């Protein structure tokens, strides 16, 4: 039965044909991966990210005190320094900081990615429309982008979260609103220049419809730029979420978000230094990993930047 299906579908032929069609692109990819492997720092970045993702996904299963992230309190053990029982020490209500930092990885990564997903969705759509249709549509969307970019993002995010109320969801919303203009501009510029390219003219001349041109021809070429920007931006998104948590309008108790933890721990410096230090280190490691990886990616996709 399987053999018959395979006969009909002929997957090997498909693979072969696909390989032929995309010969050029596969070659580029190979070269890109080679260049990526050349840079130690980028590999390190990738390794860090993979490590973090593993920690985020598996964390809840092996952390020593999982109940400490959902509301358990142990007043007798407050503010204990790092020890065998508590690798990173305990906080002001006796919760294990190691557990909370590990579980905070999940939150930061998840929220960081969601911010970008929302921002990219909005930004790419609007940017694509603006770049492709040009004219008045382009002008309007670009003015809107300009408006959003006139104020440093954190002010806007602060106003929005204060207005809507503190919490991770609202912080995420505020930050997505702050982020989409960047992608809009990037995509618009790319689409605008791609519009004039030969291959687009060629596709038009043989009667390809507009959406088809946008999605099948233009977008794949700018995905690389978007991916590079996104990989660097995740780090910044996490930093900004932490900043809002630090101010007090981001994540709330008992959610173990790194920025909020640094903020609480500030009261206990310098004598109980572990409270602010470890979440800060974790955040540093995460953002550093993403930035290195993004740096390496940029070299892969745009060799000219390296020269």
């Amino acid at each position, binding site marked *: 039965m399987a053999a018959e299906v395979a006969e009909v579908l002929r997957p090997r032929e498909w693979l072969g044909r696909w390989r032929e069609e995309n010969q050029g692109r596969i070659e580029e990819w190979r070269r890109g991966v080679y260049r990526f492997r050349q840079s130690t720092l980028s590999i390190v970045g990738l390794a860090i990210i993979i490590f973090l993702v593993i920690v985020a996904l598996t964390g809840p299963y092996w952390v020593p005190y999982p109940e400490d992230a959902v*509301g358990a*309190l142990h007043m007798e053990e407050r503010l204990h320094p790092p020890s065998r029982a508590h690798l990173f020490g305990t906080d002001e*209500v006796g919760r294990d900081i190691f557990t909370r930092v590990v579980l905070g990885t999940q939150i930061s990564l998840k929220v960081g990615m969601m911010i970008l997903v929302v921002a990219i969705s909005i930004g790419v759509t609007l940017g694509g429309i603006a770049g492709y249709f040009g004219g008045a549509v382009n002008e309007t969307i670009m003015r809107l982008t300009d408006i959003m970019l006139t104020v440093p993002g954190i002010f806007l995010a602060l106003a929005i979260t*204060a207005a809507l*109320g*503190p919490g991770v969801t609202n912080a995420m919303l505020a930050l997505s609103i702050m982020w989409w203009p960047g992608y809009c501009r990037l995509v618009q510029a790319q689409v605008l220049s791609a519009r004039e390219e030969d291959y687009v003219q060629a596709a038009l001349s043989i009667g390809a419809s507009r959406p088809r041109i946008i999605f099948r021809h233009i977008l794949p070429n700018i995905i690389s730029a978007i991916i590079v920007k996104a990989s660097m931006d995740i780090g910044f998104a996490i930093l900004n979420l932490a900043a809002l948590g630090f101010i007090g309008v981001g994540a*709330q*108790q008992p959610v173990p978000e790194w920025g909020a933890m640094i903020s609480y721990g500030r009261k206990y410096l310098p004598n109980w230094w572990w409270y602010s230090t470890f979440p800060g280190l974790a955040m540093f490691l995460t953002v550093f990993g993403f930035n290195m990886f993004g740096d390496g990616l940029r070299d892969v996709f745009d060799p000219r930047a390296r020269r």
Partner: protein
Amino acid sequence: MDPREFDRVCKLLDEFKAGRISRRQFLRLAIGGSTTVLTAILAACRPARPEPMVAPTPTAVLKPAATPKPAIEPQLLIYSGGQDIPTIDPSDRTDYSIGASTRAMYDTLFWEEGFPPELKPMLCLDYEVSDDAKEWVFHLTDKAIFRDGSPLTAEAVEYSFRRTLRFRKPRSNALLPIMTEESVKAVDDYTVKMTLTDPYPPLPRVLTQPIMDPKVVKDHEKAGDEGAEWLIEHEAGSGPFVIKRWEPGTLYEFEAVPDYWGGWPGKGHLSGFIWRIIRESSGRRIALLAGEVDIVDTIAVDDISLVEEASGYHIEEHPGFLTGYIKMNNQREPTSDVNFRKFVAYAFDYEGLVTYLGGHGPLLTGCLPDGVPYHDPNVQPIYRHDLEKAREYLNKTQWKDGGIELDYVYVTGLEFEEQIGLILLEQLAKFNIKVNLVAKVWPDMVAMSTKPETGADMMMVFTGYDVITDRWFEDQWYSGVWDRPEGGGYPSASFFKDQEVDALIMKVKVTVDEAERARMFKELQRMIMEKLPEVPLYVMPNILGFNDRVKGYKYRGLIAVDFWPLWIEE
């Protein structure tokens, strides 16, 4: 005669007798004082018995002459708090920081000392009250003067009270229910008469109005605002300090008036003080221990041991009146069921809270803190952590298996309020009830508390009414405060409505007989604890860190620090 003046002249007398100053010098220096001059001159003119000329023994010659103790040099003090002083208009409002600065720049009819605060005369020397507690006559001192040297008369008192009543801002809240502008009248230069619209026995306690100089206020009037714009950052008072520098957000500097009419109560006094804003409590602690500031306000409980252990610094801790309640919505299920409320009260882990507070935070016995007049330390019932009793009361409700969710609303960023929420979360989870910690900014919480429909299930509120007992009950548990078209405020966020309680609250307000009042307040406390509109938790301790060189500190309650009695001595 002023005892200090007497001391000074006696010292001069000693100097004269020891032959170190001449008679002319003595007269000159002594006449620099006030009414003691005549006595001093008489004393000096008595022929001094000459010391018998003895052959000086070597030791006698080498014995150093007894030098008089030098007067303590006034020095500058730096105080650090986390709050701004947004306005010092005496008719606007008062709070922890505004109150401290207005106290330094203005005088009031009375001032309070000690804990529990005792009324002492300041501008008002004594007063009479009629039997029905509606007519009051206050006799003022004739010594008080304003900055230009003109005397502070009853006219200024009348003007200040009337202006506040006119402005109808928060400072007038305690006065408006019992008086109108016409109630306050200056009978003569130093007598003020107040005729209240309703009897009010504790009247002197609410007469905390700072007295302004009407001339100065009128001089700075702009477009009919009665000086409101100017008074935000300037003062028109008679108090011991004047403004030297006013930099909002950074620091406020005050300078002492050396010959302040009220004198200086301590051994010495300050030359001035700087109110420096450091917003983070750990920053304040660091500044204290680095010697950058002399007093720090509101430091964290965990910092207490750090300051105590450091040599040269100490902690002043006092109970205060700022009281925390977990207000529960009495008009919505499940918290509308008194059994459910009692369940929460028994489920809460009070000892855990005390541990978190490091032992600094006396739990309430009843619904009023210690120190409020008529506080009944034996009130029953009181509630402590007892999971069995909690289960007992929960079973009386329709949610004995739990399965419900409640919101606990608190001010974002206040860790102790968060902590209380976490304790609630943990304890109620044992009964299968989920508590959501909802952080909000304070304006949001105030807005929520206007009507029961928008009110939170549970909301953490800190409030206090000093020693005016009836206000503790009226502002929090009298239904007329929230059950009106414009809604209520945050103290009544429990939306409690009970006819018996309402009636008694209104009755005690107008009762004059002391024994009756005591009985009624006792009954009110019992009723509140029985019907339990909310969970009374603890009194926020007032914790200040001091450099040992600051002397003379006396706790005042409800304001930050009274700078008048302080001085610096190494």
